[in-house]
């Protein structure tokens, strides 16, 4: 069915946009995992209680490393990939 108000999306287009959404979610979900870890184990974020901590304990924070991996993936890999997939959608 197709009218000015309702248009059926081809199956391939729906599949592509679903893939784009999943890829776009991977980075933010990873960041959320890091935030949940920080909430569950706040002692792991030594920046919150920096006194009497050594250099490495202040520099390397487990939950932040998880969030950094998620952000790096979202910005450098997922964003261009999603743009290409959405470009496919637009062209379809």
């Amino acid at each position, binding site marked *: 069915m197709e009218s000015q108000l309702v248009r059926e999306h081809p199956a391939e287009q729906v599949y592509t946009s679903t893939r784009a959404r999943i890829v776009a979610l991977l980075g933010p979900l*990873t960041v959320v995992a890091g935030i949940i870890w920080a909430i569950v184990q706040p002692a792991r974020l030594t920046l919150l209680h920096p006194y009497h901590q050594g250099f*490495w304990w202040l520099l390397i924070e*487990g939950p932040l*490393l*998880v969030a950094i991996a998620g952000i790096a993936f979202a910005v450098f*890999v997922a964003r261009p*990939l999603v743009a*290409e*997939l959405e470009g496919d959608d637009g062209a379809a």
Partner: protein
Amino acid sequence: MEPPSEMVHWLFGMCLLLLGLIMIAEVIVGPEVWRRRAWRIYLWPGIAFGLGVLMWPVMTFFTNSAIHMVAHGAWAQALMVMGGAELGLAKGKLTSRWWKLATPVGLAVSGGAFLVHEQNGWFFARSAFLHHLVGWTLIGASLFTLALVFRPRSVFFKSAFALTVVALSVMLFSDRDLAPVFGHLSPLAGPPHR
């Protein structure tokens, strides 16, 4: 001035998490879309090669014993050969599909290195448990990649490998220098901290 070894595991865990996400994304979008940008095909082999290079400072600065040095050195070489072979295949300089065998071999050597340099039992401490678990998981992952040599387009084996890499990163983030595992901590290990 060296970082505690648990932090080295976390840094490698971060790189593996990024690697796992990249591999999952590749499985989701499929090889045709993934290969549209030339730089993307070098991502995971490049990271694997880089991890091999980074193993050399680990070998140099965390040499607790001869077996540690041998294990880390063999591991560094295996990862570099694995990454290098995959880079060669991605670039097209290597054409024989048998070069793909470098990945299962590299992972098996990595797993063996983990198992060999952990001389305590599973429940000695958390780090010992995780070294055993990571070692066997890497050997399991090598079977997935071995299957990919013969079925290179299998979504199942690609997904299994990608998810195993993410699981490995979780294991590395769980590492602590001295902590109990499931309530077990050998008195020989010393007092737990953090």
